[in-house]
């Protein structure tokens, strides 16, 4: 149990539990104040944010999304058009290379622990959207498929080796690969209807893939789980080699 606490960095709450309803507007008229700017509360500069409840919440949310996702009750979908939020939700999972890389980001973040476990999912969508912006604008970026394949190789290898890079370096590397993924999505978009809803669906699904990786990283607390994660990382890396071969041929 001590090992679990160390990994999860469980911290007792320093705020008294008054059990108010979370939706009560009375909170706006209470004396509750945010942490002072520059201070992150208990747990040092970055804080210790996660506990078992968070992981369970993420796991249940992700499973619920996939379990309740309707498969055939879409009455008015046309093919080949950006028709809004549904096509946006579908696009990130349309390619196995994207899916594996997104999940590997979550796995690696879970292995690195706090703050990487939440810093990577915070920065990745924004950098990926920047890549999407470049793709939508038609900026020429060569070697996209190669970059995506290399991202799968690198991230899978990082998970396999449980690579402990400095936080800044890890964020820069993940951000670099995120541009390739975002550019591919942006450049592949067919013309169509509501770009805003498409963008929302696209970003949300990418975030859900990261959350899936983080939830799967829950098994990192057990030795068998660590071995399973390393095996998964190796598989992702090998898949990346296959994607690279296909991109080069």
């Amino acid at each position, binding site marked *: 149990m001590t090992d679990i606490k160390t990994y999860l960095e469980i911290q007792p709450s320093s705020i008294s539990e008054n059990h108010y309803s979370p939706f009560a507007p009375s909170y706006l008229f209470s*004396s509750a104040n945010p942490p002072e700017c520059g201070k992150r509360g208990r747990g040092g500069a970055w804080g210790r944010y996660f506990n078992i409840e968070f992981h369970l919440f993420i796991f249940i949310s992700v499973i619920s999304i996939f379990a309740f996702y309707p498969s055939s009750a879409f009455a008015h979908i046309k093919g080949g058009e950006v028709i809004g939020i549904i096509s946006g939700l579908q696009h990130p999972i349309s390619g196995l290379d994207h899916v594996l890389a997104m999940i590997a980001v979550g796995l690696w973040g879970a292995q690195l622990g706090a703050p990487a476990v939440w810093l990577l999912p915070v920065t990745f969508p924004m950098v990926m959207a920047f890549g999407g912006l470049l793709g939508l604008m038609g900026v020429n970026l060569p070697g996209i498929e190669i970059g995506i394949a290399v991202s799968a190789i690198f991230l899978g290898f990082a998970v396999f080796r449980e690579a402990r890079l400095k936080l800044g370096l890890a964020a820069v590397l993940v951000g670099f690969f995120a541009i390739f993924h975002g550019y591919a999505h942006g450049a592949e978009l067919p013309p169509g209807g509501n770009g805003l809803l498409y963008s*929302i669906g696209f970003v949300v699904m990418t975030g859900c893939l990261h959350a899936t990786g983080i939830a799967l990283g829950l098994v990192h607390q057990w030795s068998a789980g660590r071995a399973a994660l390393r095996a998964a990382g190796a598989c992702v890396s090998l898949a990346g080699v296959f994607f690279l071969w296909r991109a080069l041929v």
Partner: protein
Amino acid sequence: MLVGFSLLCRPSLAAAHLVTSGMGPVYDGIGHLLLTPEDLVPVLALALYAGLRGAVTGRRAMFLLPLAWFVGGIAGSALNIVPAFPISAISFLVLGVLIAADLCMPATAVTALAIVLGLVHGFLNGAVMKDGTGTLGLVGIMTILFVLVTLASAFVVSLKRPWARVVVRVAGSWIAATGMLMFGWAMR
């Protein structure tokens, strides 16, 4: 007292249809905001950020944003100018980055941000709605703004666990990412 209570219970005309009650445009305004992501998401984003900054900014936002929106709407319906650049994308991006980074802005600055957001988006709404629902529509928008900002900012203020603030920051990053993509769509 019993007589007074009986008088209060006296039935009057049941003006069930909005056409006769004249309240239709109010609900149109409420529906307009709820069905327009370009307005709804920045409002929720501002409420989230105001909640992250504390109860004081949340209180100010819940009163000032609707008022600014109404004033902007009146100005927009009077001037009838529709800007060409994607204002909603800017709102998404700025608010999303503020939430994701959990930037410590003073309460005055957050209040000013709420007012500017209300004026700008209200102006756009006023220009669009002037031939339809008019001022009553803006009243409906004000109402739903007050409710949404109150609930969202109070919810964030009430969050106790540190990881809950992280979830809000992740939502902010998603909003910022969406804003960037909106820029791309606008330039395509």
